[in-house]
């Protein structure tokens, strides 16, 4: 028993370390979508047969690390690291223009460390409270997915367009799935999921291929980036996050993180904006206000990362939050290893103490890898990425990734399905505001919708 525990512990530590290092690097590249990067690699380690505890520790370390290094482009260049960083852009840009972007960065990532440590135990505790309702939730899952799809669609930028497209899009996905069944005798998930994730890129490609729409994306010059000068102001390699924030800032961050952990079904961006607004109205003096709200807002996004993954996973085993539908999706559904209908995934395979223990391992590893790295090398690393890593190289890698993974699942049929979904889903996303969350939720509801409305099983 002890030997088994020790073996698992080593797996957890090793996987967390790998996830932390890989995603500290990926986070430096501004604009890399969480879903398109974390999900495929998590899927890979699941398919490779990593033990469940290692999968969970990997995921938490990866998500927390990527979130932390993502603050670098946001603070130093004014380019959002990911979609969740958008609400922080304005405050970060004022500090950048006052010549203290490194302070914005330090406050942001120190806030996110504190939030991670607060959010994990709260999420695990809240999930245990919700667990008694799990059976009810599971048996109503298809209907819950359908209702959730309508709600997410309504709250998306596309609003009525998203609701209008819901049934046709469900029909399309089930139709493609039936093609896969006809060709291979099994249904597909990875190909559809990746198609949705990579959609915006394919929308851009189609836009550029057509002479009618090409002008929308063409530009005559390379893009310009402004990078602030280096201003290091602490000694040693490991700065202490508790010293970076003042007492009041720590309090606001912890409180915001705790509240954000309990609202796991809401939009993370909405929660972040709200936290920022509330704090801005309470804290006086520009510098104090900006640094406090940045710490707390980045704390909120960190807390939602963790809570939105842990709570639905631990309590229900079905993906009922924006994170669970995006970056964390493989933890719920990665056939043939994990499935969510019927539930056979980390929900059944991990005990509550393991969620807590391996979650902490993930957060700890991220704070030992990504935190000092971002504090010390933020500027050098950004310069390196800007000057050496071209967008062509990134797209080259992701194109390969999508093609290989969908070929792995269903051969050339998988590739065809993936690209079909990518083109149509991408256009709906880019031009009509029907974002990936709506599309994933529609996918989960599609089986039930098509069966109920058209009687197609």
């Amino acid at each position: 028993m002890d030997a088994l525990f020790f073996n698992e512990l080593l797996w957890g530590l090793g996987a967390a370390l790998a996830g932390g290092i890989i995603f500290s690097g990926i986070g430096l590249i501004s604009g890399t979508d969480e879903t398109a990067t974390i999900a495929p690699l998590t899927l890979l380690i699941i398919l490779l047969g990593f033990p469940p505890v290692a999968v969970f520790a990997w995921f938490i370390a990866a998500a927390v690390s990527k979130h932390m290094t993502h603050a670098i482009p946001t603070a130093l260049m004014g380019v959002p690291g990911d979609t969740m960083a958008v609400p922080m852009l304005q405050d970060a840009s004022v500090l950048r223009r006052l010549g203290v972007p490194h302070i914005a960065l330090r406050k942001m990532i120190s806030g996110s460390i504190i939030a991670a440590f607060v959010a994990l135990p709260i999420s695990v505790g809240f999930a245990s409270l919700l667990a008694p309702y799990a059976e009810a939730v599971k048996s109503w899952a298809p209907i819950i997915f359908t209702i959730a799809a309508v709600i997410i669609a309504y709250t998306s930028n596309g609003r009525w367009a998203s609701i209008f497209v819901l049934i046709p899009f469900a029909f399309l996905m089930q139709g493609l799935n039936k093609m896969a069944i006809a060709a291979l005798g099994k249904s597909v998930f990875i190909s559809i999921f990746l198609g949705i994730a990579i959609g915006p890129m394919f929308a851009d490609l189609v836009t550029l291929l057509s002479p009618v729409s090409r002008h929308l994306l063409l530009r005559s010059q390379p893009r310009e980036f402004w990078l602030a000068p280096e201003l290091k102001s602490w000694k040693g390699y490991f700065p202490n996050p508790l010293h970076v924030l003042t007492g009041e800032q720590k309090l606001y961050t912890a409180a915001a993180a705790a509240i954000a952990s309990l609202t796991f079904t809401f939009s993370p961006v909405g929660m972040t904006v709200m936290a920022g607004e509330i704090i801005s109205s309470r804290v006086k003096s520009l510098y104090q206000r900006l640094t406090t709200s940045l710490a707390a807002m980045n704390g909120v996004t960190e807390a939602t990362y963790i809570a939105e993954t842990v709570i639905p996973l631990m309590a229900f085993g079905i993906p009922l939050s924006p994170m669970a539908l995006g970056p964390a999706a493989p933890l719920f559904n990665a056939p043939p290893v994990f499935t969510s209908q019927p539930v056979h995934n980390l929900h059944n395979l991990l005990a509550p103490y393991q969620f807590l223990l391996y979650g902490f391992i993930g957060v700890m590893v991220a704070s030992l890898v990504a935190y000092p790295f971002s504090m010390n090398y933020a500027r050098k690393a950004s310069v390196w990425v800007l000057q050496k890593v071209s967008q062509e190289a990134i797209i080259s890698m992701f194109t390969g990734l999508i093609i290989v993974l969908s070929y792995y699942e269903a051969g050339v049929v998988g590739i065809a399905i993936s690209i079909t979904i990518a083109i149509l889903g991408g256009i709906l996303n880019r031009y009509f505001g029907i974002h990936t969350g709506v599309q994933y939720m529609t996918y989960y509801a599609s089986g039930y919708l098509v069966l109920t409305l058209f009687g197609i099983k």
Partner: protein
Amino acid sequence: MSEEFGVRKKPFADVWGDTVDLKHLAIAMIIGILISLSCYILGLNYLQSHFPQLPANLMTAYALLIGISGCLFSAIISANLFKPKRILNENDFSEADRNAVLDELNIDREREAEELKTVGPKIVKEMKDLQIYDLFAKKSVDHKVGE
């Protein structure tokens, strides 16, 4: 650096949030697909012929690992072939710039100076270390910007 790009008009475009040269992008995508997919297929064939005793699902998972190394490899090749289309500006900040920013943001200087008195000692020390304390503490600022 900008002259290098400006010699003749290249087909630049924004794809997936950053600027690319369209010809480079096409080659990079072909590289990505060819290398990654052949790594996966050849890897799977190799494993099937040399390690037939491996369980089928593990075999395809290892082949996937080889395929994904192929993705990384194609990224390295593309990064070496195609340089980023970005111009990096590194700017310094002067007192006048900072004042200009505050003006641009329509900051109420009088109120800021008042509010600064309520701020705790730790924040005050931070602001003094960063040399932005005086910027907010001065009640009326006589400065000329831009002219």
